[in-house]
């Protein structure tokens, strides 16, 4: 019997290594797998590269992991937002590397990684400083920039409902990067608000099929905080 559901956060994060690239779902606080992110603090992995749209806010979730000094580099589109104080301080102090990526390019680099595409050309950022040093090419009369796939060692995802095969559905704008990131890591860990019995999720409505998921942990976290 396939059962990807594990008993606790420690089991969900077992084996995450120092130096890993961690894809972190969420957009702002919505759909951000805070329990898993904070679980990394106890788990102990260091020298992490985090890929996320934002760089955390307040003192929870990603901000807490940053404050614990576990992150070497962050790859994101929008680091500064209301309450991103931990990021600001670390960045100013030179203790955090930053790679800024346009939001759509970030999503597509992750999608490409999950789909086995090594790189792609996009018109986004052509002629801007975010294309500095990148190959470019005229395609169909338009200048494009070469962007490479961005795979993770680990993806941390928040779902609304998941079953023991790892099938997931999401809630409203909590979907965002989560299904894309789920496809792009060697180890995809889902923190789910509800566990569904196998067969209870409508096959027509499953957003992330379980093939992309290795572990599921039940975290009835409640509404997004912040």
């Amino acid at each position: 019997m396939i059962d990807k559901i594990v008993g606790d956060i420690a089991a969900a994060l077992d084996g995450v290594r120092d130096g890993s690239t961690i894809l972190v779902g969420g957009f702002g606080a919505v759909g951000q797998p805070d329990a898993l992110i904070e679980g990394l603090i106890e788990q102990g992995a260091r020298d992490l590269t985090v890929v996320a749209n934002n760089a955390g806010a307040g003192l929870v979730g990603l901000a807490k992991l940053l404050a614990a000094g576990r992150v070497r580099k962050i790859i994101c589109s929008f680091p500064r937002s209301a309450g991103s104080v931990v990021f600001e301080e670390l960045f100013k102090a030179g203790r955090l590397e930053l790679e800024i990526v346009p939001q759509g390019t970030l999503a597509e680099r992750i999608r490409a990684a999950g789909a086995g595409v090594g790189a792609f050309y996009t018109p986004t950022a052509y002629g801007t400083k975010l294309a500095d040093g990148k190959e470019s090419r005229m395609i169909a009369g338009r200048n494009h920039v070469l962007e490479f796939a961005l795979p993770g060692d680990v993806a941390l995802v928040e779902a609304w409902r998941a079953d023991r095969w790892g099938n997931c559905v999401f809630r409203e704008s909590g979907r965002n990067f989560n299904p894309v990131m789920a496809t792009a890591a060697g180890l995809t860990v889902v923190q789910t608000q509800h566990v569904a019995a196998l067969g209870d999720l409508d096959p027509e409505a499953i957003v992330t099929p379980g093939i992309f998921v290795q572990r599921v942990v039940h975290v009835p976290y409640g509404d997004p905080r912040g």
Partner: protein
Amino acid sequence: MTDVTVLTRHEMARRVAQDIPEGWYVNLGIGIPTMVADCIPDGREVLLHSENGILGMGAAPAPDQINPWLINAGKQHVTLRQGGAFFHHADSFAMIRGGHIDLCVLGAFEVAENGDIANWATSAADAAPAVGGAMDLAVGAKRIWVVTEHTTKQGAPKLVERCAYPLTALGAVSRIYTNLAVIDVTREGFVVLEMVPGLTLEALQAQTGAALRLKDKQDV
């Protein structure tokens, strides 16, 4: 010149909304563009897109109706209209980059007479600017309109010959709505479509960093 009627931010948003026809799929940037959502006339079906995976966004909720799971790209709480849909980020930007969005309304630090836009970083030295989806929207939407004050708070022109700030995209903007005028960006540069009551072209030109001309009848 004392009789010039300068538009408020809300009036600028309302002026933009007037020009959005029924049936368009529209993405609104942060700031005045977001205010356009609340200015679209009742009964006109315009579908609002948000980068974080929403089509069919509705107005801001009443304080006791907030759904913490439903935010827009500016992280503000929103509502969903009947017929609305959710999707993931890669699909969301396929809509944007793939040319499926009819219009994106953006704010800007500067717009150049060739349509270049700078709206994400205020200096090359700013090492942690937040680009978000601006670069994808600027190259991907079928048309880019900018809504902005005509000048900075210090009175410096925001409509210029060449952008000094780091660019968001080249040649992307087709129209600009300011608190003073509506201006098309054409191959021949800035063309003034309308001005607020009491304003002369000379006075507008004095606050603009590139040559303006009035739209004449042959342009119609």
